[in-house]
C-alpha cells in the first residue's frame, strides 16, 4: 500500500461526464468532470448523498453504463462493457430467488462456460470462504439479509475477480449484521485469501467509509462531481470508539459541509427547478427543537446530531438543507447553528408556526411561490399538477420531479398556501369544503 502511488493505476477515470435525457430532449447532467485513479492494493470509498450520481459512476466503471463523455480505463484498456476481472456486489443482493445458494454462486461460472464439475468445486470453495457452508441448498428467501449478502459476495468472488465493486453493500442490513460482515470482509482482504487487488465501494455512511477505506472520495450533488478526497491512515482494525477515528469522521463532515469558494457569508438562493430536499415539516421541527434545547445553546456538531437522532447522512442532510433554504439554521464546517427565525419558529405555537413557515416558504422557495402565483392568476384559482410536473421535468429526472412536486405540495398544504385534490390531481387556492 505504501508504494501504491508509483504503481500504474488499475482503474483510471478521465473527464467522465454523464447526462440523461429528460423531457423535451433536454439533457440532465448527473456527473460532471470526474477524474480519479485507483491503485493496486487500495480500498476506496465514494461517499455522497443520495442522488449525487455516485452509483451511476460505479455503474460506468463496471461497464454497465456508457459515459456521455470521457473514458474509463481498466488496466490501461478502455471499458466498453462489463469486463472480466471486475466483479460487483449489489445493494439489494440481486440474487435469483428461484436458484439455491449454490446455483446462484455458480451462475457467473456458467456464463464463463466452466464445466459442471469444476463449477461445483469452485462454488463450494467460495461458499466456504465466505462462511456459508451448510446453506448450499437453501433458497435465498430462507436466509436473513446478512446471509444473502454473503451469497452476493460469494458469487462475486467465485469468478476470481481482480477488482471488487460494491454498491452500498451494507445499507440494506441492520447495524450488527453489517458490522459483522464488514469485519469478515476486512479479514479476507488482509489475509489475501482472495485474488482481489482493489475494492471500490459506494456509500452514504460516513462511519462506514472511514472504517473500511484507505481513501475517501467525497461527492457533490447536482451535478455529481468530486468535492474532495481524504486519506485515512489509521491502521486496521479501526474502532469507532477510538478518538482518532472520531476525528477522521469529523474531518469528513467538515469537508462535506464546508461551502465551496463561491459563496461568502450568507445563503445561496435556489432557483425554480431546484431539487428540493426530501424533508418533512415534522422532521425539521424536531431537529430545530433538538438544536434549541437549553444544553446545546443553538449550535451543534453535525456528527453529534447524527448520533443523538440516530440519522444517516442520507436522512440528516436533507433536513439541514431545508433548514438552510428556509433560513431557519446555518450549516458550516461541520456545525449547525439555529437562526433567529428558526428560534422564533420553534418557540411559537402551532398556528403561529404555520404563519412563520408560510412566510419563509413564499420568500425562499421559488417553486412554492411560482405555484402560488400561477394559482392567483388563474380565473378560478386552479391548476393541474401535470403543468408543474412537466415544468420540473425540464430540470430533473421524471422520478425526482414527481418527488419534488410531492414534497412542495406537502409543505404548501402545511403552510395553507394552497390546497390539493389527490383524486383530480388539481392544485387550488380554496380549501376543501
Amino acid at each position, binding site marked *: 500500500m505504501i508504494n501504491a502511488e508509483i504503481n500504474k493505476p488499475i482503474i483510471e477515470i478521465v473527464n467522465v461526464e454523464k447526462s440523461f435525457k429528460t423531457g423535451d430532449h433536454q439533457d440532465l447532467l448527473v456527473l460532471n468532470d470526474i477524474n480519479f485513479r485507483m491503485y493496486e492494493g487500495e480500498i476506496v470509498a465514494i461517499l455522497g448523498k443520495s442522488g449525487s450520481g455516485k452509483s451511476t459512476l460505479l455503474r460506468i466503471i463496471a461497464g454497465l453504463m456508457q459515459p456521455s463523455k470521457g473514458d474509463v480505463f481498466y488496466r490501461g484498456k478502455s471499458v466498453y462493457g*462489463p469486463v472480466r476481472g471486475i466483479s460487483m456486489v449489489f*445493494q439489494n443482493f*440481486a440474487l*435469483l430467488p428461484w436458484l439455491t445458494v449454490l446455483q446462484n454462486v455458480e451462475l457467473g461460472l456458467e*456464463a464463463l*462456460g466452466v464445466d459442471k464439475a469444476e463449477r461445483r468445486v469452485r462454488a463450494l470453495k467460495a461458499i466456504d470462504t465466505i462462511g456459508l457452508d451448510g446453506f448450499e441448498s437453501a433458497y435465498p428467501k430462507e436466509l436473513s439479509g446478512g446471509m444473502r449478502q454473503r451469497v452476493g459476495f460469494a458469487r462475486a468472488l467465485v469468478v476470481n475477480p481482480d477488482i471488487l465493486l460494491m454498491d452500498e453493500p451494507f445499507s440494506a442490513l441492520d447495524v450488527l449484521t453489517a458490522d459483522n460482515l464488514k469485519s469478515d470482509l476486512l479479514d479476507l482482504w488482509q489475509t489475501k485469501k482472495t485474488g482481489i487487488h482493489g475494492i471500490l465501494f459506494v456509500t452514504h455512511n460516513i462511519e462506514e467509509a472511514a472504517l473500511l477505506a484507505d481513501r475517501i472520495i467525497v461527492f457533490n450533488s447536482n451535478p455529481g462531481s468530486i468535492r474532495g478526497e481524504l486519506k485515512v491512515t489509521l491502521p486496521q482494525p479501526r474502532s469507532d470508539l477510538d478518538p482518532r477515528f472520531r476525528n477522521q469522521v469529523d474531518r469528513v463532515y467538515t469537508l462535506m459541509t464546508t461551502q465551496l469558494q463561491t459563496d461568502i457569508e450568507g445563503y445561496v438562493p435556489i432557483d425554480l427547478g431546484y431539487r428540493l430536499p426530501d424533508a418533512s415539516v415534522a422532521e425539521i421541527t424536531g431537529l430545530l427543537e433538538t438544536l434549541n434545547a437549553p444544553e446545546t445553546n443553538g449550535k451543534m456538531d453535525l456528527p453529534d446530531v447524527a448520533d443523538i437522532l440516530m440519522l444517516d447522512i442520507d436522512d440528516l442532510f436533507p433536513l439541514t438543507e431545508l433548514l438552510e433554504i428556509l433560513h431557519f439554521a446555518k450549516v458550516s464546517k461541520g456545525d449547525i447553528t439555529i437562526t433567529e427565525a428558526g428560534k422564533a419558529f420553534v418557540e411559537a405555537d402551532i398556528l403561529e408556526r404555520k404563519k412563520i413557515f408560510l412566510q419563509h416558504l413564499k420568500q425562499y422557495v421559488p417553486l412554492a411561490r411560482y405555484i402560488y402565483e400561477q394559482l392567483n392568476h388563474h380565473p378560478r384559482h386552479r391548476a393541474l399538477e401535470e403543468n408543474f410536473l412537466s415544468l420540473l421535468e425540464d430540470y430533473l429526472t421524471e422520478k425526482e420531479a414527481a418527488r419534488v412536486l410531492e414534497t412542495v405540495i406537502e409543505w404548501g398544504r402545511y403552510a395553507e398556501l394552497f390546497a390539493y385534490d389527490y383524486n383530480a390531481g388539481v392544485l387550488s387556492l380554496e380549501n376543501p369544503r
Partner: protein
Amino acid sequence: MNFLRNPFRTPQTGKLYPNYWDLIALFVVLSLIGMLAWNAKQMATPYQIGGQLPISLDPLYLPIYALRTVSRMLIALVFSLLFTFTIATWAAKNRRAARIIIPIIDILQSVPILGFLSIAVVGFIELFPGSMLGPECAVIFVLFTSQAWNMALGFYQTVRSVPADLEEAANMFHLSAWQRFWRIEVPFSLPGLLWNTMMSMSAGWFFVVFSEAVTVNKQQILLPGIGSYITVAIQNANMNAIGYAILTMFIVILIYDQLLFRPLVAWAEKFRMEHVGEEAREIHSWVINLLHRTHFLRYVGERITLLFDAFVNLSFFRSKLTITKRISWAVRHERLVNGIWDFLLGAIAFGSLVFLIEFIRQHIPYDVIKHVIMLGLITALRVFILIILCTLVWVPIGVWIGLRRDVAQIIQPIAQFLAAFPANLLYPLVVILIVKYHLNVNIWVTPLMILGSQWYILFNVIAGASIIPKDLLNVADNLGLNIWLRWRRLILPGIFPYYITGAITAAGGAWNASIAAEVVSWGDKKLVATGLGAYITEYTGAGDFMHVALGIGMMCILVLILNRLIWRPLYTLAENRFQLE
C-alpha cells in the same frame, strides 16, 4: 389471487382515448378479418374434407373423445407458448417492435374468437384439401387465438419488469442472451405466465367444445371429441348422452385441475419474488407434496434439472467474452431506421384503411351496417343486464364467503373449477325448459351467455373480501357502523379492484358466449334470439362470410369502445384509489 389482475396490460393504461398506435392496430386487424372473409368467399364451393368419422353416442367412446379434445387443447398450448416466447420477447426487447405488436395483440384480444372459427375453417381446408387436417388445424388455431394473446401480453409485461439489479447482475457476470432468457426472464415471469396459461386453458374448454362441431356453408363438420358428441346428442334429443358428456367433462376438468393446474401453480410459487408473496394466494397441491416426498420422483426431478442445466449452457449460445466497442449499424443510424420503420407502419396503416373503406363500400350496404349496429346494441344490453344481475347475486355471497376463511378455502377452488367447466355443455338443459314451458326466447336465452363466466365475479369477490385487513373490520365494529355504512365505507371499496377484474372477465366471456348462446337448439327445435351473436352464427351456417366479417368487426369495435369508455376508467380508478396497500 391475481387472476387476470391486469386485463389492461398495455403501456397506455389509464388513457381514455386510443392513441394513434391503437388506431393503426385496429385498422390492421379489421382489414385482416376482411381479407380473410373475402378469401373465404372465393372458395365457397362444397368442401372435400375426406371421410368424416360418424360420431357414436355410445358412452364407451367418450374416453377416446375426451382424449382427442384434450390433445387439441395441449397442441394449441404448445403453439401459444412458442408465440409467447418469441413474439412477446421480441416486443419486450425491441421498442420499435413493441409499438406495433402490443396494440395489435391488445385489439386481437377483443376479437370474438368463436366468430373467427368459420373463416379459419375455410382457410385451413384450402391448405389441406381433402382431409380432416383442415378442420383440425382450424380448431387448434381458434384455441391458439383464445390462449396466446393473454399469455403474450402478460409475458411481455413481466419481462419488462425484471428488477434492474437482476439485469445488472446478469450483465456483470456475462450471461448470454440465451442464458439470461432461461435463467432470469422465464423464471421471473413463470408464476404469472402459468397462471395466465391456466386461465386461458379454463376459458379454452368452452371454445373447444363449441368449435369441434361447426356448421360452415350449410355443411356440418364433426371432429371426434366431446363437443361433437354433445352436438349429436342435441340433434338426437338424447338426454342420457348429454348426462354422460357432462359427467365425462366433469372428470376431465377435475383431472386437469388436480393433476396439472394446481401442482404447476403451487410449484411456480418458488419463482415468486417475495415482496408480492403475502397476498393470501397460498395454493396447496397434494400432487406436488407427493412429488416432493417420493424418492423415485425426486430422482426424476434431479435428472430434469440436469437436462435443463445442459440446455441453458449449450455452448452455441454462450456469450463471447471478447468485448469490443460494438455499435451496430442500426444504432448509428437510429434516425434513419426509425424513419423507415415509421414510414412502413404508416404505409401499412394507410393500406389497411383504403382496403377497409373499399371493402365496406363494395360489399356492405348502409342499412345492413345500421342493422348490425342495432343488433350489437341489443347484445350489449344483454351483457350489461347480466353483469348487473350477477353482481347483485354474487357480490353479497362472495363477501359472505370471503370474510369466513374456512368457508372460502372450500368454496374458492370450487368456483375456479366451475369457471373452467364449459358451460355450453349445460345449454341443452336450459333449452329443454324453454321449449317445455314456451318461454320468451329473447329473455330466457340470455342467462346462458353468463353461465360460464359468472364464476369469475364470484371468485374475485371472494379473493377481495378475504384480504380486507382484520384491523379494518375491527375498527368498523368498534365504531359501531351499521350494515349500510360498513358496506359503503369498507367492504365495497375494499373489494372494488377485485370485483372490477372479475366483471371485466365476465363481460368479455359473455360477449364471446353470445355467439354460442343466442342460437340454441334441441332436437329439431331451434331457438334464435335477436342479437349480434345470433347474426354471426346464422351467417356462418349460411356461408356468407361478408356478413360474418361485418359481425365480427362490429363486435370487436363495440367491445373495444365499451372497454375504453367503461372498463378501463373503472379499472384505473380501482388501481389508484381502492388498492389496499
